[in-house]
């Protein structure tokens, strides 16, 4: 359990470093992916809503420390998205190769929308606009692509070697 949590913490740090260092140089139509949001979706898919919400809150806070937006905005968006994915995860086809991409896209849309709406209500200029809709959509597509790489890393970090899995 401790090792699992340490791996997840290291995963968050790694994703924040990549988010702040590498991906700002790799914009596509002005958008970049939200790595911590994608990781939250992956955790929620494996662990359910409660763990998804907690991981989303922690990872969102970590990335909020490097954003100009108010602290807590990404935490809110990620935690709610994680919870929602966790609630509906039992209905997804788990063996599908495209499932990470589908979840990454849906999570990107939901998380980005929550971020923009709450940010706009909190007084951030420019969050509630048609341009934001375009940015959220492009970023969601980008999230779907990076999900192919993020999901396996989350699965590795989340693997608890001293607990057995229950099988259906």
């Amino acid at each position, binding site marked *: 359990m401790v090792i699992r949590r340490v791996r997840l913490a290291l995963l968050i740090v790694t994703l924040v470093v990549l988010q702040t260092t590498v991906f700002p140089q790799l914009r596509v139509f*002005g958008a970049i992916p939200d790595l911590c949001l994608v990781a939250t979706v992956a955790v929620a898919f494996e662990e359910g809503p409660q763990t998804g919400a907690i991981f989303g809150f922690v990872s969102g806070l970590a990335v909020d420390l490097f954003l100009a937006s108010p602290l807590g905005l990404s935490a809110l968006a990620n935690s709610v998205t994680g*919870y929602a994915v*966790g609630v509906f995860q039992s209905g997804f086809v788990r063996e599908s190769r495209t499932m990470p991409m589908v979840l990454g896209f849906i999570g990107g849309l939901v998380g980005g929308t929550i971020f923009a709406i709450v940010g706009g209500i909190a007084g951030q200029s420019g*969050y509630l606009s048609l341009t934001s809709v375009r940015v959220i959509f492009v970023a969601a597509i980008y999230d779907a692509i990076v999900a192919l790489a993020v999901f396996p890393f989350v699965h590795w970090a989340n693997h608890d070697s001293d*607990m057995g899995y229950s099988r259906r």
Partner: protein
Amino acid sequence: MAVYRRDARRRPVLLIVVLLSLVLVTVDSRGNGLIDSFRRVARDTLQPVQSVVDSVFSPLRDASDGITGYGAVKDENALLKRRLAELEGRLLRERAVGSEVNELGKLLDLPTIQDATGVAARVIGGAPGNFERTVVINKGTSKGVDVGQPVVAGNGLVGKVTEASSTQATVTLLDSPGFGVGVRLENTNERGIAEGRTGEREMRLNFLSKLLPACGKDSSPDTCISDGELVFTSAVANAAFPPDIPVAKVTGIQKKTGELESTVSLRPLVNLNDITYVKVLRWPELTGG
């Protein structure tokens, strides 16, 4: 068949994290020194790791262009661009110096950009999110960079420092939504506010007093707005920016059907999507001691 682990906790986790998040958003929106301190510590702590990662990925990015000796060519290109931009900026500033307002400013003993010293810095990163227009520079409070200081590049205004830790600082670009700077027109000296617009790289000029029309064929340039006319930071006491910094140029004056006023569009003189070196101005200058 794939398996998953069911989470047996029944605590109202979502409610707790949502409430915590909303409290943090509310507190930080109003400004909080403790949160700002956390941010500075986090950025300073992660900065060495970011430098290593950046140094690893920079060569990979450069190699993707497939040009031999790209690093040396890139450095020389950046240096030449900076020198060219500085020369262009000097030329533009001399157009401003020749104006009547500058003479009045001297009479009123207002400080000018020539009085401001600064800290040179390199842009080391872009915005890590999708809803902000910022860049990160490699100088922080340890080098004299502080929140609120204006930032310029060779040929004009870039923005201002909005966050600063010990080793780096965040600069909000002047075309960021909600960013406003007091300006004056080159020919008429009419004052207004140049504001960034959501989703647009062009800014909008809002006049403080008189609304000027677009210049016609026989119009005198000191009574109207011309395409290509420059705007400079205006000279007022206690201004956030030194006066006479080139900011943007007029790219169009449009009046849509049904609107009461014309819209004056401005394009920043600095290419805000391609900045390598900037200068953070110590403004206002400390006097005495």
